[in-house]
């Protein structure tokens, strides 16, 4: 197994991870940046066929001219404490011994099931955008963008720009809550400009508030959705539904490292330190807040991990300001509890193992339900049904054990054996 030694290891090459890696490296630390995508940038700066967004470019340039060792296509399989990570690289296994680790594993989309959501053509909003970015043709396709959160705006904007016919943008939050954000937005001119530009870009798109997709219909694929609005139900024809209900922090690695969580977020102090010695966290895993919070937290985490505590502290005002905005945004888009009642007994919740909500109703505990129904035991390892059932049924997170993703028996044996020999030294 390839053995690497470094001062700081950053996991995740989205905005938080890139900022952490760049700052740590520029303050003199040896830095390894681990990411399972082929290119840096994460979901939000995803570099598809086009150029990365303007805000990303200075960071990606700094990364390119730094001494950061960027391991792309690489995933963390297991850890032995926070200072020893086992990696799977395209060419084999590696172990990195590190002075500090910064987790910047981001978030993933929350999907709440409704009748018909498993029809082909219904997909996650971020997933639809990612597909379009990778060159999948959407020109002329009628798309309903639905769910909640600022991401929907960006997705609708992108899809429309790619030639799709966005027939409706369906937001569950009330228009009043969003208007309530306006005074705050005034104090963040750049965000205001961005929001106005997005809004201008989707001018003409029908926008519904306090509304949601109640069901999708179709034979072999989705052909229409029923949208519930305060004024009644509408039937909207479409070939694609891009649907997302906000984001959920991706905390599997943090939990494997035994970092403490508050609700779904990794808990950190003012220097982005977790309660585990040598382990920092930045970006969406500490609380979903968007790219500006992620950058601010990433910079602080990178500097603190590299030992430059003064420089890290100097940035706290910027971060705190961004965090306040993010918190207000989150409150504005708070999910209506009614969304948890869309799925019926016949609605599939766990797609991997084909488990319906009706089968799950008998259980109050995620682990109990998993053992009895196989809900969450499948290929996606509860990435979709876990957050959904936490929202619908108030279930708690199940525990996490290695491996973090399915890996060949031989590789798992090698990783496990390496941990023994180390322990015996």
């Amino acid at each position, binding site marked *: 197994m390839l053995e690497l030694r470094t001062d700081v290891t950053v996991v995740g090459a989205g905005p938080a991870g890139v900022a952490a890696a760049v700052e740590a490296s520029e303050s003199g630390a040896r830095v390894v940046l681990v990411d399972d995508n082929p290119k840096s940038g994460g979901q939000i700066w995803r570099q598809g066929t086009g150029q990365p967004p303007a805000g990303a470019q200075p960071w990606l340039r700094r990364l390119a001219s730094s001494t950061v060792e960027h391991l792309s296509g690489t995933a963390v399989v297991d850890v032995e404490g926070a200072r020893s990570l086992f990696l799977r690289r395209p060419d084999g296994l590696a172990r990195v011994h590190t002075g500090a680790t910064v987790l910047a594993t981001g978030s993933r989309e929350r999907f709440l099931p409704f009748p018909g959501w498993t029809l082909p053509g219904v997909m996650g909003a971020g997933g639809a955008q990612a597909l379009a970015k990778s060159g999948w043709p959407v020109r002329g396709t009628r798309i309903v963008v639905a769910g909640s959160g600022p991401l929907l705006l960006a997705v609708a904007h992108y899809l429309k720009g790619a030639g799709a016919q966005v027939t409706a943008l369906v937001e569950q939050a009330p228009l009043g809550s969003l208007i309530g954000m306006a005074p705050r937005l005034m104090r963040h001119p750049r965000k205001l400009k961005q929001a106005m530009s997005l809004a201008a870009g989707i001018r003409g798109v029908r926008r519904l508030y306090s509304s949601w997709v109640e069901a999708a219909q179709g034979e072999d694929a989705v052909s229409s959705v029923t949208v519930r609005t305060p004024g009644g139900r509408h039937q909207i024809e479409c070939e694609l539904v891009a649907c997302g209900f906000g984001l959920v922090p991706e905390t599997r690695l943090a939990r494997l490292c035994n970092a403490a969580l508050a609700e779904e977020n990794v808990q950190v102090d003012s220097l982005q330190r977790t309660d585990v010695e040598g382990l920092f966290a930045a970006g969406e895993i500490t609380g979903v807040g968007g790219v500006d919070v992620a950058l601010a937290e990433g910079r602080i985490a990178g500097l603190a991990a590299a030992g430059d505590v003064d420089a890290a502290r100097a940035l706290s005002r910027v971060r705190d300001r961004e965090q306040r905005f993010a918190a207000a945004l989150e409150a504005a888009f708070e999910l209506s509890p009614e969304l948890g009642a869309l799925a019926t007994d016949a609605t599939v919740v766990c797609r991997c193992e084909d488990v319906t909500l009706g089968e799950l109703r008998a259980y109050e505990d995620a682990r109990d339900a998993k*053992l009895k129904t196989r809900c969450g035991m499948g*290929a996606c390892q509860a990435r979709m049904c876990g957050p959904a059932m936490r929202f619908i049924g108030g279930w708690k997170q199940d525990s996490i054990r290695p*491996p973090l993703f*399915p890996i060949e028996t031989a590789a*798992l*044996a090698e990783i496990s054996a390496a941990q023994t020999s180390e322990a015996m030294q």
Partner: protein
Amino acid sequence: MKTPDAIVVGAGIVGAACARALARDDRRVLVLDAAPGTAGGATAAGMGHIIITDDSEAQFELCHRSQQLWDELAPEFPVGVQRDECGCVWVAVDDEDLEAAQQKRDYYAARGIRAEVLDQRQLREAEPALAHELVGGLRVPGDTVVYPPAAAEWLLAETERRDGQIRRNAEVVAVASGAVTLADGSALSAPIIVNAAGDRALHLLPDPRLHDLVRPRKGHLAITERGRPLIRHQVAELGYFRSAHGANQSSVAFNVQPRTTGQTLIGSSRQFGATHRAVDHGILARMLERAMELLPGLADLRVIRTWTGFRAATADKLPYIGPVPGHEGLFVATGHEGLGITTSLGTGGIIAAQVRGETPFIDAAPYRLDRPVAEWSVA
């Protein structure tokens, strides 16, 4: 519910089997479990083999009779129980193993159980994916596999259907004649109490001398993604008996199952003294290495999950089933080690007969709580 006729402490496979057996005698049964769910302890962690083993005549008898009970119930199981009549192949790594296989075959034949010794060629025909160095094996076609949590859930559902009740989040901290005490200080009473709380069971009894009769013995398992199974039978090494019954502080043995889901379940390990739930990497590595040694194709299958569990082990490899002397109406059913799924139904049958005041279908003396105390072979 009105005052129950019987309280069963522990909703694992043994508690569930006892509850169902009592409910079939028209007793109103209340089952209590400390966890927010049922069958979440050793039952959830186990492999689910319904197999014959023969460490002693008493162990054999309990396995044999229990396996018959499982076979009788089979037509009633829902699909989720994943019953698989795959049989078991015990593989021999050397001539000594092969000799043991022949002895087992003779022992089983004398007791009416089908088993056949396989030579090297026959073993390769039966299981082509096994390592070619293996010299032979023993096929026991009647051995089966179930998915234990679903089997326990079915037994509990049968109990509920017969007027029984299951209470979760109800941790019992003490049992006595006619009553149990819960963690919140409240008490529940019933004329019959069956203590099936697994490796904690004897700690609920007042006599501290009993506490050490059952010790937790940690195990590890790993399971692959769905795919095409490499093997048709559950396959274990004859050396498993040495591991299962040996004196070592920690050991691993090849024991692999094809699951009806298309997954492959990989075992097994045994450790005394380990009390933490986390995976012990050294043990996991040894277990996987042994599995790949005897089933090389495993190396490329992807493991989706690993987990650990604790078996309730006894020094003489026999469970404790029966009345607690000096405590009217108080029974115990624990110490089933790695055979809890297999022997649960027989255990339920014994307890139900004893509660009725009848002689059980097999001699239950070897399982008495007041049998002579065996020495632990490890510290």
